[in-house]
């Protein structure tokens, strides 16, 4: 179904025939023409939907527009679900207006604290075919989740407290997606781990679905986040070289070349069905077995139910496992939980008492030096975070974690905090004569996460396995990279900005990760690969880089092939087919 028809259908469908008031819900991300606005699906689980964001780095973006068929003409009141993303004693940074049939509605939007329905004004609809536009006023990340047109002046009810149900009712969604697709293996998350899993399984003849919520593959390595891949290839060099990056500085524009390579290579597999811009939103298990994963297109809202005998969770945040009821952990374990203390770094390494001081998320950014002067405004809403810090580009240590923030649930606040840090620091740097010709070339709007949920497998990988170089009989991933965990600099020095981190390194010889850390302990048909594999906080410190997580993906893809051949569970690959599995891995080189 093409997008135009879908929008029209939604428009028609939503007219409530039995009520006196006519009302219409329009998801902003379903706008036909996004203009300069970007679709942000990162925080769906927290705020209910993807949204459109005017990420213009200070320059207002071009209008997003769409056409909607109205059943009834008349006077409509209009609301936008939006928020002032930096409430405070300053002008809201992300302001925009709604334009209907060429006429801007009265109220400026993006000015209220917290996601809510802001009243935009009223408009007389004189024809059935209505042109609607979002007009960005600031270029600083105004955001619009949805529009609501109603002939009643009553503000949408229960919007904050029960939005999901309200939305489903308005959109007329049934519980189950109508479209269903069956595969040998369904992989959710197209970072390095997911891509490697897809390639490895596809090469063994499995019919694979790879679901990824972005338009490009690679996750943290993608041109949208631009972290270079680190680690070694292990036994999967051939596979990983199809998707890795060169060792350019983090944030480099060169990420685009590796992006092209990665997308081209994954797309070249006929038995990988690639679902780009599809975000999984549910996984259901019966008797500890996942029956299906449901996903939604991030722009059109179309839904598909994916069924398979086995699933891979490479979402990074462990969403598939979480929804299916897999055991998981989050945070820093106490030093005594697994015996991971390191006196040299004490509490910064592994605390006596468990806590939430996990490694933070990064937002990378880059400048461009030009031959002319570029102005950049003073931004009080940004300088309240940046203070007097000056910078013209970011690096890995632009990172944010705080103990009242959860890296998944509060990811939007974390991302927004980083945006303020970036804009404020760049604004400070621009005051210097030497920086007058710099302009912002690129600022990511995606959170590059290091650590979130860790699904628990039959084996929990810890620091001790690094220290003792445990040679597991089911070792399927190997790494020589140091264990590297981060802490926020302001923990030791309150004068340091709260958005910069420091790394602690534990140098080591080669260490190994067992296959038993790559499938769920209690969900019988769930593999995991990537940062959500089964490990402790410190155990994650070494293998969290992307060639290592890519190795995990490849190992899991091959294990899925063994499962498929013997109709076995992931655990049975270890208990019954380990030799055959290890032989298959050896053949990959």
């Amino acid at each position, binding site marked *: 179904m093409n997008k135009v028809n879908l929008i029209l259908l939604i428009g028609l469908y939503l007219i409530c025939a039995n009520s006196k008031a006519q009302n219409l819900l329009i998801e902003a991300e379903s706008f036909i023409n996004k203009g300069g606005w970007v679709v942000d699906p990162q925080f769906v689980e927290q705020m209910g939907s993807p949204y459109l964001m005017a990420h213009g780095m200070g320059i207002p973006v071009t209008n997003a527009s769409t056409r909607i068929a109205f059943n009834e003409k008349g006077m409509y009141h209009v609301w936008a679900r939006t928020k002032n993303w930096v*409430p*405070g*004693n300053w002008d809201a940074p992300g302001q925009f207006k709604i334009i209907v049939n060429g006429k801007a509605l009265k109220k400026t939007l993006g000015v209220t*604290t*917290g996601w809510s329905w802001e009243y935009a004004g009223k408009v007389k609809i004189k024809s059935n075919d209505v042109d609607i536009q979002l007009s960005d006023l600031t270029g600083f990340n105004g955001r619009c989740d949805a529009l609501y047109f109603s002939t009643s002046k009553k503000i949408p009810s229960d919007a904050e407290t029960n939005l999901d149900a309200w939305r489903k009712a308005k959109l007329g969604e049934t519980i189950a997606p109508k479209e269903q697709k069956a595969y040998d293996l369904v992989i959710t998350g197209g970072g390095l781990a997911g891509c490697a899993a897809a390639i490895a399984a596809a090469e063994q003849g499995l019919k694979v679905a790879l679901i990824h919520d972005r338009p490009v593959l690679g996750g943290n390595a993608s041109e949208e986040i631009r972290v270079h891949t680190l680690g070694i290839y292990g036994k999967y060099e051939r596979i990983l070289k199809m998707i890795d990056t060169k*060792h*350019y*500085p*983090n944030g*480099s524009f*060169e990420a685009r070349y590796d992006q092209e390579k990665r997308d081209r290579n994954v797309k070249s597999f006929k038995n990988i069905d690639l679902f780009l811009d599809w975000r999984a939103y549910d996984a259901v298990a019966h008797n500890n077995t996942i029956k299906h994963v449901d996903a939604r297109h991030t722009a059109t809202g179309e839904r598909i139910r994916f069924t398979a005998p086995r699933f891979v969770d490479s979402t990074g945040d462990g969403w598939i496992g979480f929804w299916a009821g897999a055991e998981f952990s989050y945070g820093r374990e106490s030093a005594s939980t697994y015996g991971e203390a390191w*006196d040299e770094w*004490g*509490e*910064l390494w592994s*605390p*006596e*008492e468990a*806590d939430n*001081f996990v490694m933070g998320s990064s937002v990378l950014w*880059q*400048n461009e*030096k030009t031959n002319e002067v570029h102005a950049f405004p003073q931004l009080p809403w940004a300088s309240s975070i940046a203070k007097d810090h000056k910078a*013209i*580009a970011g*690096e*890995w*240590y632009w990172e944010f974690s*705080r*103990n*009242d*923030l959860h890296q998944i649930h*509060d990811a939007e*606040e974390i991302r927004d905090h980083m945006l303020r840090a970036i804009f404020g620091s760049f604004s400070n740097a621009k005051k210097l004569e030497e920086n007058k010709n710099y302009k912002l070339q690129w600022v990511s709007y995606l959170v590059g996460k290091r650590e979130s949920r860790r699904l628990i497998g039959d084996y929990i990988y810890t620091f001790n396995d690094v220290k003792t170089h445990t040679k597991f009989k089911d070792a399927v991933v190997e790494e020589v990279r*140091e264990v590297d965990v981060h802490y926020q600099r*302001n*923990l*030791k*020095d*309150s004068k340091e900005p*709260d958005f910069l981190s*420091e*790394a*602690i*390194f534990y*140098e080591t010889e080669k260490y190994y990760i067992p296959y038993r850390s790559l499938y769920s302990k209690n969900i019988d048909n769930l593999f995991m690969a990537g940062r959500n594999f089964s490990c402790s906080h410190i155990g994650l410190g070494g293998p969290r880089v992307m060639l290592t997580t890519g190795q995990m993906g490849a190992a899991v893809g091959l294990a899925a092939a063994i499962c498929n051949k013997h109709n076995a569970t992931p655990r049975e690959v270890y208990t019954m087919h380990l030799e055959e599995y290890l032989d298959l891995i050896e053949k990959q080189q």
Partner: protein
Amino acid sequence: MYKSLAFIALFFIVMGFRNQKKRDYNPMFFNMTNELKDIAKDEPVFKFEVKSLDTAYSAQINHDVRLLSNSNGEPRVFFSDIETSVCADGECKLANIKVYWNLLGNYVGYGIHPELPLTKYEHDTFEREDYAKLHQLLLDENSILKRRKITDLIDKIPVSPSNIDSKDLDGISGATKKEIKESVVKGGLYSCYTLWHIVHGEAKEKIKTYLQSINTPALNTYFLYAPYRDYQIYALKQLNKAEFKEHSKQIASIFQSTDALTRTYVLKKIPEDVLSEQRTTSQFYDVFPHIDINSRTLLIKKLKDANSTAVEIVSKHVGYMTKNQLSMYLKYLEETYESLNGGVKYNLIKASNSKRYAYSYLIKEYLKNR
């Protein structure tokens, strides 16, 4: 024969005299306060090995680490007078430096022999600001030099006008290179590198081990009451519950003045029967607006252990809370207080009407729903 014996005797007399000679403890930089003022005992306690970085002559020289104690016999500082070669491009020079470590093995300062100044590339001597920069570098236990080989650093340092022009460099990212350049003395990379690795090498590890052999409860009390953060957290880690109670006044004082790391440690460890004392609760919660955000989170989490007065103290400061902290606090009130006492309610109403507080609307909603 007699001549030889006389020479040997003279040698031992001179050496003995050298060991008895009162040393000059006058470091150029020293990050402690009174620890060198009353040194009455200076004894060698172990040796450590300094390896030359010179690839042509891989010399290894043993140096004494000396423990300096005060007139009461209390250990105060470790010290070593070190001579090492600093090599660049096949040319080696000697560097002499007198290094001071605290009792935990953390670097605290250094001095030089005035007649033997430190040198940079092409024999230039260190300027005053170079010495200061070296001190700052040595204070950084997690310096960027820690994990680098000297061969990784050469040729890549001099050409770094900015971190964007470094795309061509393999292995070291632009920011890393910039960080190295900023942390070392200009033209003194080899000296800086060599000295950092000596100061943070074997000697430091041996001091940590040695401390175990001389540690006493009295020494731990000295650590707890000393104005140094590394001493304080070290001491706090040794305390049992009874000792925590015994020293609660000092611990509250540390809490008010220390960094976020130590504060969070104190809040995690403080026993309920200590925090629940009204005086202690007041000492901890009165500083709510003046401390870091992470510690505020823990203070809210600890309300259940604190004296009941804490709830009202915190209510005066809701305007300093993050959104999540406010949610935690309101949830705590919801679960524990059937009806809000007058003071708490008054403060919440006041905050709910504040135009300066971004989350006042959440307090309004909360009050409305009660």
